[in-house]
């Protein structure tokens, strides 16, 4: 069971997570229904892969970042450990249902949050080059454009013709939505407003379901929705505040560790909500960059390059840490400050799309990431 039990107010204040559901199969295409579901956890601010998955076998780790590395990590193999915040995730690894990709990132090295976030969601060749997102394009290709579900639509899902967001509203004094009124408003719009009010109208005909606003419950809700016949094939949960320039902490009670716990809770929530559908599900994390190898002057870290990606789901049948470890010594670092990225994370995203949506790698490489030569890493993750 998810561990966090935040009140709604605390949640809104401290965690800032939001959910988006996407990819309802179009009617008429049900025979071609894709084999699985794909969920993305967006980690805004830059997750520290060296804290999340400490490479304790690297002699430089403790020399360079003693204050950022947990003592009580879980040993994964002779080289890599797992942060104590990932108790649930560790259990999934033991059950061969989770893996880690380390020293990886989208090919972006400029260390700006906003360029990096745009690139990791847009999946284009340079920041701000795309107005749609890689997941949206993949869902389009799989003929499940469809609806997606938060207060703003993340770029990663854009590209579908008919987006819909989901986040429960609680406005005192307002009554149930009036379908006929909303239809009238919708009809008065000539342009984009019309479609959007139609979505509100459609929602007004569905019975209210109350969703608690903490990340784990959102994940559970998403899992349940995706498990239903004809339910969405994709979901995105956004978690912010990984940008720990100061007082980052090392263990599960530190600032970064608490964010890592949220990831753990979200994955646990998904597993619970998905139920039997877990077996055909893949969940992956995405972050704009890792953090510097060195600890800065305020017990935190600056923006870096390589990080780690977490993968979970029944679609994984053998747990492993996938890495071509670049080393942490000064000359092995990127620009003598960051963990180098040796695996293009777009390849990891492509493998997850291939698994969940049944698309061919070459098609994904070309049409989703505009990089026909993108290496295929499917067998490293799913075989």
């Amino acid at each position: 069971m998810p561990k966090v039990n935040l009140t709604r107010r605390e949640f809104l204040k401290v965690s800032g997570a939001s959910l988006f559901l996407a990819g309802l199969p179009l009617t008429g295409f049900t025979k071609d229904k894709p084999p699985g579901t794909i969920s993305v956890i967006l980690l805004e601010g830059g997750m520290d892969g060296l804290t999340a998955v400490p490479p304790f076998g690297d002699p430089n780790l403790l020399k360079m970042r003693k204050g950022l590395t947990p003592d009580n990590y879980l040993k994964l193999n002779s080289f890599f450990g797992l942060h104590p915040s990932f108790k649930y995730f560790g259990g999934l690894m033991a059950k061969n249902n989770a893996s880690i990709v380390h020293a990886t990132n989208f090919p972006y090295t400029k260390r700006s949050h906003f360029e990096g976030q745009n690139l990791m969601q847009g999946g284009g060749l340079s920041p701000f080059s795309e107005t749609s997102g890689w997941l949206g394009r993949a869902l389009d290709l799989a003929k499940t454009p469809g609806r997606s579900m938060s207060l703003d639509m993340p770029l990663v899902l854009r590209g579908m013709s008919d987006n819909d967001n989901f986040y429960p509203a609680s406005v005192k004094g307002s009554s149930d939505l009036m379908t006929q009124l909303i239809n009238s408003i919708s009809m008065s719009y000539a342009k984009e407003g019309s479609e959007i009010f139609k979505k509100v109208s459609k929602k007004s005909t569905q019975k209210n379901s109350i969703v608690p606003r903490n990340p784990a419950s959102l994940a559970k809700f998403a899992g349940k929705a995706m498990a239903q016949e004809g339910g969405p094939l994709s979901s995105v949960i956004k978690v912010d505040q990984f940008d720990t320039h100061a007082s980052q902490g090392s263990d599960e009670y530190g600032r970064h560790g608490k964010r890592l716990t949220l990831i753990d809770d979200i994955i646990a929530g998904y597993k619970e909500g998905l139920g039997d559908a877990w077996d055909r599900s893949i969940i992956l994390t995405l972050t704009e960059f890792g953090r510097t190898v060195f600890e800065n002057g305020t017990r935190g870290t600056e923006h870096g390059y390589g990080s780690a990606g977490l993968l979970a789901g029944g679609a994984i049948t053998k747990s492993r840490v996938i890495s071509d470890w670049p080393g942490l010594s000064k000359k092995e670092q990127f620009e003598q400050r960051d963990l180098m990225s040796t695996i293009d994370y777009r390849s990891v995203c492509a493998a997850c799309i291939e698994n969940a949506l049944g698309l061919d790698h070459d098609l994904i490489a070309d049409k989703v990431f505009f990089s026909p030569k993108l290496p295929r890493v499917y067998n490293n993750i799913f075989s």
Partner: protein
Amino acid sequence: MNEQYRVAQKLGLMFQADTPLPDDIKAWAISQLKAKSPALGISRLGAKVKPWPKSLQPDLMERDTMFANWFQRNKIGDSANASNAERQANQKENLMREKDQLKFSHRNVYGKDQVRLRFASFWANHFTTGDVHDNQNHIGHAIDEAILANLNGDFSRMLYKVTSHPAMLIYLDNIYSAGPNSNEVKWAKQKGEQAGLNDNLGRELLELHTVSPSAKYSEEDIRSTAKVLAGWGVFPGMLWGNNKITVKQKHAKLIQMAGTTDTWDFFKRDAAEPGTKTVMGKVIPKGKGGLRQLTDFLAAHEHTVNHISFKLTQHFISDNPSQSDIDYIANAWKKSNGNLDQIHRAVIERAVASKEPKFQWPMTWLFQVIRLSGATFFLGWDQVDDYDDSIMATRKIFEELGQSFWHVRQPNGYSSAKSEWLSGEMFERRIRFADAIYTAGKPSFTSQQIMNRIGANKTTRELVNSVAGRKEQFIALMCSPELMGLENA
């Protein structure tokens, strides 16, 4: 909409029914830049509009003292064991977030300086801060004193005052940053402790607040900027909250640290990086004066002018700014050496000339609906901590709206582009808020009266006349293409 309301929607917060409409709307909008209006509000529902009481607008020193007192009392009382009543009393006495949010809302609803307030919100968003760590008593002060109070001066001054304000120094982690060769770092090394540089504010000062990545500065420029900023901080909260020493002793310690007791001018010499620094080719001298030289250099930089001219155009004129509009504003900037009155005047001229509708932020729309309808949707300042059966707490309103300058969010702030706001989610909220404003806020005017007053277009009239029920008509009006700023009037 008639021309007055069309311009008030784009550049202001809409005219209240008792405000006479100006004949020359452009001249009026420009004159608004210098409008003098105190923070107006109401003490209780139904009370007359009056200026906010001085006692609820403490200065920065009082705000820090209050926060330190809150912290001590919260700790001493062991917050887990404290009664709800005690916790509420402590919050009521010492924390400013709820009061500042209400003051901001009142000001926007009742203010006579609507165009000024819109520009203030633009800059409050450009210089995003948020309620992280110990920041909640600072944000309202930064909006009023660093932004609104500097709205008629040069951009360079606003930039300096915002960069050195506690709200920004805390939000972007500069308060503990120390130069790599500073005394503080030397002493920390001797003790085996960690101290040194934090580049968060330096990076965003370049990327977001001034030149933007188009200037192609290097990682070294970011580090040099952080070195100029090292030392800029706030009072140590522990010292301020320490009740075992006298105020006089506290002042002596502050003067020893920074030569001043002013927390908005607090440069800790022992954390400063010695020597000159070079940022984008500009040599910045050591010491406290370095920051002003750096911010002046950045404020006048061509990339800053272009970057912010684009942002102003996108916020007030068009989602897809035309180069001629951007150039017009950039030229006014350059010609006036960054005088905000001249820059804002250029924005007004172009916004009035452009007939393109502009989709408004959730909070702007909310204030406009309330002003148009004469509803009362915010509690009075004497009711900040009261529960009301029909009207939501101010904090809740902004939570549900999905937008507020107090929210914890990324430092690039809220987008001015409608693409970031067009979603079923957001539109559902507008319907619900229009409903709540009608139901709880009891508008003074009917939809017909409002339509007549603003000169609503045919589409709006047909829409409103096609639905039955006064509440339904009100919702339809406020969510119409015209009032949402989505389609042409």
